[in-house]
């Protein structure tokens, strides 16, 4: 591989003073600063947490939840499609024989490591049973220790959907 | 459970047939018929006995017998009516007979495929015996005469 030598541009006085360059760089900042000072209500940020966001829609990817069927049993059949699709490999499932007569199989454990999750939503797309959703509307995750970020089956089932349509569309 | 033994007459018949067929296996259907004629159905014990006589696994008898519609695995005490449902009979109103027979609870009714009486349809077989050119009245008379069945 050859090396191409490029001549540095000659510096003029104007260049070495940097004033025009500084102005160019700060132009937008200064413009917005003056705008915001003059009209404080049009700032798009909110005073969280005193103020809560109002623009979270059903398509917002919040914390996962496991859905239930019309007969109040778990929808998940432990097919592992979510775990397969998961790019960060943060879904841990152990399957077991289902004994309530609804289906053949269900998860014995179903754990999502929220610290590893990238909230991509692939698991929701992969699910053939509409058993996992991210429509909880929850966007904050707070816990005191690492273990608390492992959401198990019971916890995931207890999270309610924020947009109605509680029952899974599983067949 | 008591055992099942083939009658001397049947055993003689089996011996005779063994000479006719190139292999024992061929006696499967004749033996199944013997059991069914004797008991009215194919009992598990009888099938086990049959498997001993022909030296073949019992599975063979179950599999073969279940293929043919005429073999029964359960005994029925009722009069067994097989009503033909095939086209010639249907064209000659076998449905009417079916609606009538459905209302009778003293018979075991099965709708079967063509019994080869298209020229004298509609028809049914009662306990295996053919009754042809039927109408409801005629059928009623036949079923009424329990001794003749």
């Amino acid at each position: 591989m050859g090396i191409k030598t490029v001549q540095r541009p000659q510096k003029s006085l104007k260049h070495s003073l940097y004033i025009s360059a500084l102005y160019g760089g700060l132009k937008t900042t200064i413009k917005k600063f003056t705008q915001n000072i003059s009209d404080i209500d049009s700032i798009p940020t909110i005073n969280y947490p005193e103020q809560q966001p109002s623009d979270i829609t059903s398509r917002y990817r919040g914390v996962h939840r496991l859905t239930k069927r019309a007969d109040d049993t778990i929808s998940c059949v432990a097919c592992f499609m979510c775990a397969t699709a998961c790019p960060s490999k943060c879904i841990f499932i152990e399957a077991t024989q289902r004994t309530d007569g609804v289906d053949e199989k269900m998860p014995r454990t179903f754990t999502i490591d929220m610290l590893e999750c990238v909230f991509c939503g692939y698991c929701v797309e992969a699910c053939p049973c509409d058993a996992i959703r991210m429509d909880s509307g929850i966007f904050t995750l707070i816990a005191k220790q690492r273990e608390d970020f492992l959401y198990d089956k019971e916890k995931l089932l207890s999270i309610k959907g924020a947009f109605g349509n509680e029952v899974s569309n599983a067949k | 459970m008591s055992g099942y033994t083939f009658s001397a007459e049947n055993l003689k018949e089996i011996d005779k047939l063994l000479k006719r067929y190139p292999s024992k296996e061929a006696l499967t259907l004749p033996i199944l018929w013997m059991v069914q004629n004797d008991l009215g159905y194919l009992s598990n014990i009888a099938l086990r006995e049959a498997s001993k006589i022909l030296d073949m696994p019992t599975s063979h008898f179950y599999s073969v017998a279940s293929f043919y519609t005429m073999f029964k695995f359960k005994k029925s005490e009722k009069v067994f009516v097989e009503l033909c449902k095939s086209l010639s009979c249907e064209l000659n109103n076998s449905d009417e007979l079916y609606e009538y027979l459905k209302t009778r609870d003293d018979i075991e009714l099965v709708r079967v495929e063509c019994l080869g009486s298209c020229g004298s349809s509609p028809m049914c077989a009662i306990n295996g015996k053919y009754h042809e050119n039927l109408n409801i009245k005629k059928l009623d008379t036949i079923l009424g005469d329990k001794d003749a069945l």
Partner: protein
Amino acid sequence: MVTIYVNNKPIICKDKELLIKVLKENDIFIPHFCYHESLGADGNCRMCLVEIEGSKRPQIACDTFVYDGLRVHTKSESILETNKDILELELLSHPVDCPTCDQAGECSLQNYYMEYGLYDSRVSVAKNKKDKALDLGSNIMLDQERCVLCMRCVRFCSDITKTDELVVMGRGNDSYITTTPFMRLSNPYAMNVIDLCPVGALTSKDFRFKQRVWFLDSTQSICHACSKNCSIFIDHNAQKNQNDHVHRFRPRVNTMVNGHFICDEGRLSYKKANETRKNDFIMKSRISTYESILKHTKKLLQSENAIALVSASLSVEQMLLVKELSEMYLFDVYYDYKEDEKFGDDFLKSSIKESNLYTAKLLDFKLVDKPYEESLISKSLILNFNSEFISKPRPIEMIEFLTHEGKFERSSSIFTYEYFHNDMGLLINSDGVISSYKKSSKVKSEKFTLLKILNDLLDESYTNESIYEKYKELFFKNIPYSKIMKQSQRLGL
């Protein structure tokens, strides 16, 4: 030899060979359910229809015999259409419960569905209902709705094991597979029907819901349950943050040894691979380090009067190194083996339970009997290479090389080494066939291999290959190592 043309490409094959066999051997995609190499054709599934030039209708490849100049098309438009239509019929009453089906991922129906791109169902009639989740015995679960009635399992029980437990009952669309009334599947090879079943109708109760197959890695290996040395696949995986776990053994086709099958006992012997020793190195009942126990052993070997006992299940290479060690420190090597007449049969089960007895004899190791007991009196050190036959030693020094929990841990020093599922090597079976088992490249070894430990004791650096090459002329009829790695070779008795 004749030449046939498949999709206009010439293929050279034996005359009068079955067309489907030729296609499969040449890796030409041919969908099929009922045909299986070990069972032959039944002609019932009609999936393998191909177009043959000169014949009016499509023909099934499993009932077509090749002849010179035969011209076959497997990809013509009409054949693709036909295959697609027949697949649609196979799926007509299928419950499509792939999410709960263990076969998903290795299911012919799924594979063919993907191949023929049949995307939307046209079925608007009620499906035919049959029984699900029936326990047939011998760890086998049956789902009649998923069955495509290819009869492989029925033919296996009637033709191979001749036990006739499985039958097809009923007729037409209501046909179903079941066990003969009052019978359960109970032959020692029953679980092979799970592999034979091309769909999820027959699944393993042992493996049921344990793991999805696409997470598994398969390693080519050899079953160590008896001296038949059946070729197997070890299906294992390591879940995130967890150790590697073996989930099942599956038979691997090897016409020289086991054909297409393995026995149930061998299949279930995978459990032993998950029960290996936890503590790696123990010296005088305390957890120790490799280096210190190595030093300790070397010292003892130099000073004490030693004797060695090997398990006849060690691999060829491991035994060769033991032999080297014995020549270096001048001790005798003994072996013992267990014979179980009840276990053996004339198919795939050998009554000798040790998998490499042949090599122990070949290397002139001595059989444990009276002289062994007598010579023990004058010895002060026993080396035990994973043998279960060690009798309670007098309070003398004993150094053990173990894969599993041993009997005398409190009185000895222990090297723990990798069990065969994480190691590689060669074995010679009771018929004198030498085969190789391999190591998965995906598993990180946690333990040392016995070869590494022996190398360190010898201050050598043999590899599996180099130690074999050193002795191949002497013991192994000069068969090149690479040839064995590829395929089993017959040494002869």
